[in-house]
C-alpha cells in the first residue's frame, strides 16, 4: 500500500506539462484527480518514474461554449462535481450530468475529473460510453501541437486511448444535444460499485416516431461501444414498447463482454438488453 518512489512535477502551464511529459518519455504519467492512478500506484501495479500533476493549470478547468461551433467545451481537469452542477452541461448535455452523478461517491466526484476518467479508459468507467453516445471529441495537446480525436477513435483498447505518451487531454467537446431525450441506466452490485453494465441512451423523436437513437454501452467489451444494431432498428421505429423491446434485443450484438467476479458474458448481454429496454423509452419520454 506504499507506492514505489517517483519524481513529481507540478507545472503551472500546459506547455510546461507537455514538455515534462515529453522529457519523461514512457515512464512519465499524467496525474489528474488521482482517483484511479493513486490506487494503482499504491497497489504497485505501475511504476512510473515521473508524475506530472495537472492540478495547477487553470486553463484546463471549467465549461464554456464555443461560439464558432456551438459545442460545449469542457476542460479536461473539470471535476465530476463541477460537471454535474454546471448550467451549460445541464442544459445542453444532460446525459453527461446524469451519468456523472452515478460516478462513485461524493469524495471521488470532488477530486476525480472528466478528462482523467476518459484518459484512464477503464472499460467499466461510466463516462466513456456517454461521450460515445454524445458523439463527443477529445482535444489533445502534445509537442507537435493540438489535434482533435472523435470519441469513436479515442478508446483503443483496455485502458488504452489514442493519446500518445507525451500528449495531454486538454478539453472535451460535446455537441449540444438540444431536442434529444436522454437516460442513463447503470447496474452495479452496490451503490458505489463499478457498472457491471451501463447504458447511456439519447433519443430524438419526430412525428411520434423515433427519428434517431444513440446508445453507448459500458462494460460490454474492452472499450465502450455503441449498440449499433439497436440504433439501426430504432431509426424510424414507432415509439411503442413492442418496437423498443424488439430493438433492444439486439443491444449486445457485436459486443465482447468480459468474465469477471461480477458477471459472465451471457449475464452482461442479458443486462445490456434489459437496461436498453428501460433506457430507450425513458429517453424517448414514452414510459
Amino acid at each position: 500500500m506504499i507506492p514505489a518512489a517517483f519524481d513529481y512535477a507540478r507545472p503551472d502551464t500546459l506547455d510546461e506539462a507537455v514538455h515534462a511529459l515529453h522529457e519523461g518519455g514512457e515512464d512519465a504519467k499524467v496525474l489528474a484527480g488521482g482517483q484511479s492512478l493513486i490506487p494503482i500506484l499504491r497497489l504497485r501495479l505501475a511504476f512510473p518514474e515521473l508524475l506530472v500533476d495537472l492540478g495547477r493549470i487553470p486553463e484546463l478547468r471549467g465549461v464554456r461554449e464555443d461560439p464558432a461551433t456551438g459545442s460545449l467545451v469542457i476542460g479536461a481537469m473539470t471535476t465530476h462535481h463541477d460537471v454535474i452542477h454546471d448550467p451549460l452541461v445541464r442544459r445542453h448535455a444532460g446525459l453527461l450530468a446524469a451519468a456523472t452523478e452515478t460516478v462513485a461517491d461524493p469524495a471521488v466526484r470532488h477530486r476525480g475529473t472528466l478528462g482523467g476518467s476518459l484518459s484512464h479508459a477503464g472499460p467499466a468507467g461510466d463516462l466513456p460510453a456517454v461521450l460515445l453516445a454524445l458523439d463527443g471529441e477529445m482535444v489533445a495537446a502534445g509537442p507537435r501541437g493540438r489535434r482533435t480525436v472523435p470519441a469513436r477513435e479515442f478508446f483503443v483498447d483496455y485502458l488504452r486511448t489514442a493519446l500518445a505518451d507525451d500528449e495531454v487531454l486538454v478539453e472535451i467537446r460535446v455537441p449540444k444535444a438540444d431536442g434529444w431525450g436522454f437516460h442513463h441506466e447503470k447496474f452495479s452490485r452496490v451503490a458505489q460499485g463499478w457498472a457491471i453494465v451501463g447504458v447511456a441512451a439519447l433519443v430524438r423523436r419526430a412525428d411520434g416516431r423515433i427519428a434517431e437513437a444513440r446508445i453507448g454501452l459500458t462494460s460490454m467489451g474492452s472499450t465502450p461501444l455503441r449498440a449499433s444494431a439497436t440504433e439501426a432498428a430504432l431509426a424510424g421505429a414507432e415509439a411503442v414498447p413492442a418496437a423498443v423491446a424488439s430493438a433492444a434485443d439486439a443491444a449486445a450484438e457485436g459486443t465482447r463482454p468480459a468474465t469477471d467476479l461480477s458477471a459472465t458474458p451471457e449475464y452482461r448481454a442479458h443486462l445490456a438488453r434489459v437496461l436498453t429496454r428501460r433506457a430507450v423509452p425513458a429517453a424517448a419520454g414514452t414510459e
Partner: protein
Amino acid sequence: MTAPTATDAPRPEVGRSRARKEDARLVTGRTTWTDNITMPGLLHLAILRSPTAHARIDRIDVAPALERPGVIAALTGRDLADEPGPMPCVWPVTEDIVMPDHPAFAVDEVRYAGEPVAVVVARGRYAAADALEAVEVDYTPLPPVLGLEAAPADDAPLVHAGKGTNRCYTWPLDTGNYAAQKARADVVLRRRYTQQRLIPNAVEPRAVIATPPTASNEYTLYSATQVPHVARVILSVVTGIPEQRLRVIAPDVGGGFGSKLQVYGEEAVALALARKLGRPAKWTESRSEGSRAPTEGNLVSGTMADHLVPAAPDLPDFVTDRTETPATSDALGVKGVGEAGTIASTPAVVNAVVDALRPLGVRDVAMPCTPQRIWQAVTDARAKEAKT
C-alpha cells in the same frame, strides 16, 4: 393536572441505551494505536506473501533486497524455521485432531494465498516496502483445495501431504433431537445456503512492535491483539523467552471481529528479529495484506440439516455463581454480569421482586433493586391506591 414527565415513566433497564464512556477520547484522537508507537532505532518489517493458494517453493533469493538502501536484514521462512519455532494450536478441539506443523512463515510449501514467505527489515517503512520488490521467489504451482466440501473428497489434493488427509477433526454437535422434531414438523424446508468468505477488516490493521532484551533480559511486545494474555503464553513457548520475562501490551485496539483472537506468526517473527538484531522491530499490516493474511470467517458446517435452528428450550443448563468481591462503583456493590449464559439471572431476580410486591400494587422496580427503591415503590403504590 400536570403533564406527565419523563421521570414519571418507569425506566426499565432492558432496552435502555447506555452512555458510552470511551467515545470522547476516541473521536478526539487521544488514542494509542500500536502503529503510533515509535522508539529510538526502530526497524520496520515488510513481509512478502504467497500470491497463490498452493505451491512448492523452489527457490527464494533475498540477496537482491539486501542491496537496497536502508535494508538491515532479509530472511526467508527457512531462516526463521527454528527461531521462532512453529506456532502451536491453542485449541485441540477433539482428541483425534490432526495438527500439521505450522511454521511462522512458510518453509517449503505455501498453503494459502497470503502466507508469509520472507521478511525484509529496514530503517524505514518505505525502504522495507521498496526492498520487498527485489526478493525473488520461484514457485511450482500445486493443485489447491477450493471449498469445504471439496476437501474431504477421496481424490482431493492434500494440503498437508504428510498427514494423509484433509480432515482436521470431526466434532459432532448434539443439541436437540433432529429426527424426532422433523418427524412431527408440519413443514420441512430443504434449502442450500451459501455463506460468502468473510474478511474481518478492522479499522486498525494488525500491528506489532517488539523490543530487544533489556539488560535483565526482559522483552516487551506491543500488539493490536484481543488476547494479550494468551499471546504471552504462546509467544513464550514459541520463542523460548520465559513468560516472566515477556510483557505483552495491547494498547488501544481498533476492532478485531475475531481476526485478533489468534496469536500470529508475524508477532513471533517480530520478537525473534528484535532479539536477533538487538533493535525494536515494528510491523504494521497493510490494507491489502489485511484482506488476505489474517484468519477469516467461513461457515464451517457443510449442511444445516445436521442441526436444528436453536430455540429457547435448546439452551444448555447453566450454573450461576456469585462473587465475594464487592465493587465500589455502585450502591449494591455488584459488578456487571457479562457472560451471555447468565445475563438472564438479573432480570429474573427483579421479576421475582416485582412479582412478590404485585399484591401491593407494585408493577415495576427500577434496577438496581436497592432496599430504598423497594420501599419507595411500595410507598408509591400504596399512595396511589389510597387516591383511587
